[in-house]
């Protein structure tokens, strides 16, 4: 039980960091070294259907501001301090309200603390904002 919980927390953190790495903007500061490694979640789903949808309005990215918060949230979740992790993620959400990465972090944290319903609802909402297959698939995995 304890071991599986630990492994799961490790997975949560690595996923957050992994996705942080996916972002197009590379933050000037060094991202903390991942604690554990996990391959991209393998979820087989039809590709998101966004026919002819143009690129979204180009708002300058808040990515550089988000990354330190996401990293801290990952660390808090790993410590088991889910309240702190969620507080940090909510702050991140206010800064980048259309960041799928933030929704994913929230969904992961909700699941880690045992709230599957909230994890699912958050991931569903996040699906509105995902831009890459990896992001969308990771979110979709929570909605099943």
């Amino acid at each position, binding site marked *: 039980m304890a071991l599986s919980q630990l492994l799961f927390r490790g997975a949560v953190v690595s996923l957050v960091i992994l996705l942080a790495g996916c972002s197009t903007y590379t933050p000037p500061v060094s991202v903390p070294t991942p604690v554990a490694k996990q391959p991209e979640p393998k979820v087989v789903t039809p590709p998101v259907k966004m*026919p002819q949808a143009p690129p979204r309005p180009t708002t300058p990215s808040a990515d550089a501001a988000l990354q330190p918060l996401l990293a801290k949230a990952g660390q808090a979740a790993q410590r088991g301090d889910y309240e702190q992790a969620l507080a940090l993620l909510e702050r991140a959400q*206010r800064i980048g309200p259309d960041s799928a990465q933030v929704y994913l972090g929230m969904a992961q944290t909700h699941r880690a603390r045992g709230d599957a319903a909230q994890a699912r609802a958050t991931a569903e909402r996040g699906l509105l904002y995902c831009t890459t297959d990896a992001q969308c698939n990771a979110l979709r995995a929570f909605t099943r």
Partner: protein
Amino acid sequence: MFRTSHLLFKLALAALVVVGLFMVYLDARITATFSDKMWELSAKVYARPLELFAGAALTPGDLAYELEVLGYRTVTTPRQPGEVSRNQNRVDLYARGFDFPDEREPQRRVLVEFSGARVKAVSAGGTGIDLMRLDPVQVGGIYPRQGGEDRLLVRLADVPEVFRRGLMAVEDRSFDQHWGFSIGGIARAAFSNLRSGQVVSGGSTITQQLVKNYYLTSERTLVRKLTEVLMAVLLELHYEKDQILESYINEVYLGQDGPRAVHGFALAAQHYFDKPLEQLDLHQQALLIGMIKGPSLYNPERNPQRALERRNVILEVMADQGVIAPEQAAAARAMPLGLNNRGRIRDSFPAFLELVRRQLSRDYREEDLTTRGLSIFTSFDPLLQRQLESSTAAVMEQLDRSGKLQTASVVTRFDTGEVAALVGGRKARYAGFNRALDARRPAGSLLKPAIYLAALERPGQFSLATVLSDTPLTIKAAGAKPWQPQNFDRKSHGDVLLYQALAQSYNLASARLGMQLGVDAVVDMLARLGVEEGVPRLPALLLGAGEYSPVDMATMYQTIAAGGFRMPLRSIRDIVDVNGEPLKRYPLEYERTVGLQAVHLLHFALRAVVHEGTGHGVYNYLPQDFAVAGKTGTTNDGRDSWFAGFSGDLLAVSWIGRDDNGVTGLTGGSGALKVWAHFMSRASKQPLAYRMPDDIQTQWIDDRSGYLTGEGCPNSRILPFITGSEPRQRTDCAPRDSGSGVKDWFESLFGRNG
């Protein structure tokens, strides 16, 4: 002889016993209350802190206003916390730092550079900062309703040494030696008063003053004076000098701020100078010390000249006593009073504070809020509030010079459900009837989306292209007289597509649709959207009957804007106790209550409202390509004018009406819409994005018949459908190249090429 002396002895003994008992009583009173004296500390209510990072949507003017409200002083070069210098697109500021519930934001000097309406870079000493936040504006406090004492606690260790020694030099020079009262002190006071030709200090020790403030009334009798001395001695017996001095520093009365009494030097420093006590300059310290003697007589706001003279006397005493050097005193004497220069921001947002108070009252007793020194961190956004107030004033002035019309608005960030700004009446800065919370009005067509959503949730039966009949109908309900709804233009429009009926707000088609679905289905949908109170289970509900506040409508549209996720409107983020320990967090919680696809289709219809329906007036304010969605609402004879809608970042609901429920002569489109659009055009930073969920696809539709048709065919337009709900029938028109190349607003969302 023997008898008399015996009697005298008895009397003396009795007197001694009485005095002894009195002292026991006083002693008990002191020990019972002093050591665990509960300071009454009001709750402090903070706005959201402004987040600074490269890419933030913020103008130099916004930042300047935030800093002004925070009381930052404009200087040439910022050298200490709370100073700022601004130069075109560069703002150089010395941030004060703040202990937030999660972590400490350090004091530091930072440079914020702008490019247009965005922050380009934030840096400190040439190194980039990813993210920082300013100290939050304190927008108010929660004081006892009848007014009362307020203070900020300060520990003796945090009181500057000079201040402490200055205080003793003026109020009680032998404090460190005496036993509670001081004959020498009285003599010295008399002498120094004589020498300076004015009353510099009274003869009471600090201990006596504390006893007086703490336990006694202000009457001047001998018995009271003796009691004071006795209690002072007892206090000294029981407690350390440091404890007594610390209590004094937190207890002393230093003026009035409206109904609340300013107690303690820490609150006085905030109140008069907008600074923590630790950061006061020498001349400011001297002013506060000088005010003890007569908080209203030497009030620097009301009697600046007298206060200045008093301050200079204090500086002189401090120099005489060797607390400061004569040169320091001379330099400080040359300073102006140095009062804060901000417009009074605190407690000028009564409507929002009332919302906070209501939310708090669910979890806290009134007494805890006014006495426990809680810090309440809210989502209040001073920048959005400023815009909402100025948009309200501008539009109301234009609509109604007589001042008979009232108005209220609510602004939320729908991604998080946080209320950011609130106007409860035309005079936004005055407390009074809070219409945003307490108005109970019918909502007119603002409720219609609930009918259409209930329909669109049944893709087997309804789609945006379903043909509805906008023709007269009579609804008979048991025990009520037959109801014959009318259209606003008193005409019927025959067959119309479902999305058109909502866009044009046709009453007949909407009532027919609602009756087909059943009133219960609409009541159920309203509940899922978050509106559960004041909803009558009657056919008239379909056209907006009931009692709703602007906040109720914001809750409903919040769920719609968020894509069918209901979340409670939140105004509070965190509550922290007097020691900085987190007490409670109000977390974000999503609850999926309506299907994403149905809400997506409703979004299309609400976009149609502003592009081609009753809400088209918003584009008199907004640029054509700035996508928003919304709905107008008008009640009988224009008694209520509503508009609710959202962009990519903000949701707002506005209402205009009269307190006496009189006729306004306005529709939703000619009244509340203007407040809404005026505000949105200036406050919203992001248009509504188009995000197509799974299981939605688009089809070319004949706009008259609702049949499938080909691209480029007559009356063709493109509509979204839940997969499988597309119309079955098809026109006989084959797709062709549309020669004109004119795209409608929806088509252009897809960026199609002709």
